[in-house]
């Protein structure tokens, strides 16, 4: 065995057998996480592409749909998520600089903000159900038995009626047939709204699970300047989810807002 002074990283308990050094492990793991985030970019990207095509095709309906979701809640949620990204970055910094208490508090802060985000999202989803804006005839019919939207296919008819009424408010004549077609197209907007925010929320929930696991490990004092890779990877994942929302907010909530209401 060598008698020279070797750094303790060679015998670090967290060094996996396939790696030669902690540095190689950190490098490879971070790179691996970035490659995984590439797959997430393409997955959300597919949704964004489809959304873009329909937005161009059915622009007025998308305006109607976007106007009917609350920009205030969306704005608040954006700030909440950006805040959680800040606390997450601070948590990684605290781990890297060996500050155990700060790590834990920043992680908890991130989780609280993430939960607030999901809570606001749940409220928004409830509002949509209450207004009969849930897309799909199966759900529309199913929800009928729970009360709220009481007519069959009211989801479609309700939006069509709203379009006619808004037209009357703006002194425009909108025939019901055209309104129904626009309503069908608006349903497609809501399909994308739920698919995109739903997939995003799903990733947030997984993120909260990851953060809990990191919290557990942080509270056991596992992280330090020599080994904080899991925190770094958790941070990358969380920031990515934040970035998706940074794009979702203007794309879903701010279509032609200057004409609509709050």
């Amino acid at each position: 065995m060598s008698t020279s002074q070797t750094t303790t990283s060679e015998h670090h308990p967290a060094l996996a057998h396939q790696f030669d050094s902690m540095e190689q492990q950190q490098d490879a793991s971070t790179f691996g996480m970035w490659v995984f985030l590439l797959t997430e970019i393409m997955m959300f990207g597919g949704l964004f592409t489809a959304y873009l095509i329909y937005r161009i095709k059915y622009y007025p309906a998308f305006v109607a749909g976007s106007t009917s979701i609350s920009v205030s809640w969306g704005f608040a949620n954006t700030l909440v998520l950006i805040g959680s990204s800040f606390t997450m970055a601070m948590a990684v910094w605290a781990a890297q600089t060996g500050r155990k208490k700060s790590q834990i508090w920043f992680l908890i802060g991130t989780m609280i903000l993430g939960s607030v985000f999901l809570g606001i999202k749940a409220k928004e989803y409830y509002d949509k159900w209450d207004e009969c804006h849930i897309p799909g005839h199966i759900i529309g019919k199913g929800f009928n038995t729970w009360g709220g939207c009481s007519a069959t296919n009211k989801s479609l008819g309700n939006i069509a009626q709203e379009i006619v009424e808004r037209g009357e408010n703006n002194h425009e004549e909108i025939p019901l047939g055209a309104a129904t077609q626009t309503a069908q197209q608006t349903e497609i907007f809501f399909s994308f709204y739920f698919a995109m925010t739903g997939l995003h929320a799903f990733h947030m929930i997984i993120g909260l699970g990851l953060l809990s696991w990191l919290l557990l490990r942080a509270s056991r004092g596992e992280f330090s300047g020599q080994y904080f890779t899991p925190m770094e990877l958790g941070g990358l994942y969380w920031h990515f989810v934040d970035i998706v929302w940074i794009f979702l907010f203007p794309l879903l909530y701010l279509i032609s807002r200057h004409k609509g209401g709050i």
Partner: protein
Amino acid sequence: MSTAITAPAPVMPAKHYLNDNYGIRSWLLTKDHKRIAILYLFSISFFFLLGGSFAALIRMHLLTPNGELFSADTYNKLFTMHGVNMVFFFLLPSVPATIGNFLVPIMVGTKDLAFPKINLLSWYLYMAGGICSLIAMISGGVDTGWTFYAPFSSGYSKTHVIMMAVGIIIAGFSSIFTGLNFIVTVHRMRAPGMTWGRLPLFVWSNYAASLIMILGTPVIAITLILLALERGFHIGIFDPKLGGDPVLFQHMFWFYSHPAVYIMILPGMGVISEIVPCFSRKRIFGYTFVAFSSIAIAVFGFVVWAHHMFVAGISVYSALVFSLLSYAVAIPSAVKVFNWTATMYKGSIEMTTPMLYAMAFIGLFTIGGLTGLFLAALGLDIHIHDTYFVIAHFHYVMVGGMVTAYLGGLHFWWPKMTGRMYPEAPAKLAAIITFIGFNLTFFPQFILGYMGMPRRYALYPPEFQVLNVLSTAGASILSVGFLLPLFYFVWSLKYGEIAGDNPWKATGLEWETTSPPPTHNFHQIPVVTKDPYAYGEEGEVPVVH
């Protein structure tokens, strides 16, 4: 008195990755990339046999023009299950997950892949996806075609589309994790001295295929998720009656599924790039060109997808662009064919079984590739789209190309993986039978397609019967060719000649360790100083069989 110096008889190493640990737990919870490769080998062989059985049923049904064997609905299920099994559960993982998993770490000179646990997870995901697919099959199958075109799949088919879609999504994640592992391993875990320019071309090919796995697979995942949502909740994304666009499905589907065919073929081309220099006893011609052609195929493969949609109603101007780019993507493949051929020119050819498969590959892949150009021409495609011409084209590249390369690779590296040689005579016989059977099956289909026989039809006009019968006859021969290796490979595990470290006198780090390799691949991490493919130098003794 003989003055020849005989080499000592090869021995099996006492301890290697197969006997290092016993028991089912040591296999099902293994982190060793070599064991995971063997697990994959078993699984994909099962799906190959399953997909092949469906093919046999299809060919039997097509013996007569009136479709007397199965109803049209059942026939739809047969070709769907054949396609789904073969594409998603056999072809996509075949070389990367078996030969690639086994060899990539050894070829770059390291102990394991970057993330061994994720590698094992990848196999479990594959099995989970496979089980979903089997459930869908047993519950009555799917009849939409492996392409799942909407709105039939999202609104009208009465079969278990969602279960099958879920299986494919899960298998897709398996593929993503394999690709992720390869990319990180090749970038970050090469042995000292192993520069990019010294990597075996097999590694370059698997790396390029991994790029496609990472960038393409997520798109089919989201496409199938949207399909499932539309089917389950009747939202209009692809169904025109609900305001959706069926062509959008095709765009999203083919954005992945076209590059997917390059995921399938690139590792096969990597195998050929290893076999040809070895059995020509000559350096590969144009290493740099072959290496970069893999990357070029991966990149170009992403911008040609709408050539599957020329008659679907896309804009003519867009079709022009995609047609032109489809011609461009053929160029890097042609570069490889030229380089392999140039490697063989003036080489000392040894007609071993892997070399027979490699030579078959070069010829059959060229035919398949050239017929792809026929399909890329807009005017011609209007005539031959959705005919047997397309079927013949992709079977030439996938079976004549990919499966041939896979079998060649299995034979080439069988001694390394098991420590034993397969029996050469039955192997050569199987290769020849496969070649004859393959051509008899699929060449008539080019003619059928050109004459106008549509694909996915349970009935056909009687004037096409002779060619169909020839095709079915070929299929029966082909099946013999494919089944023979199953028997002699298993036989060789007990009775095969002991191989030794390097029975082929090949270059490459994998041949410098024992057969089978130890669990950590090398007793000592190698330091690389030579360029790869240093054949025909320093008075090497050629292999005599």
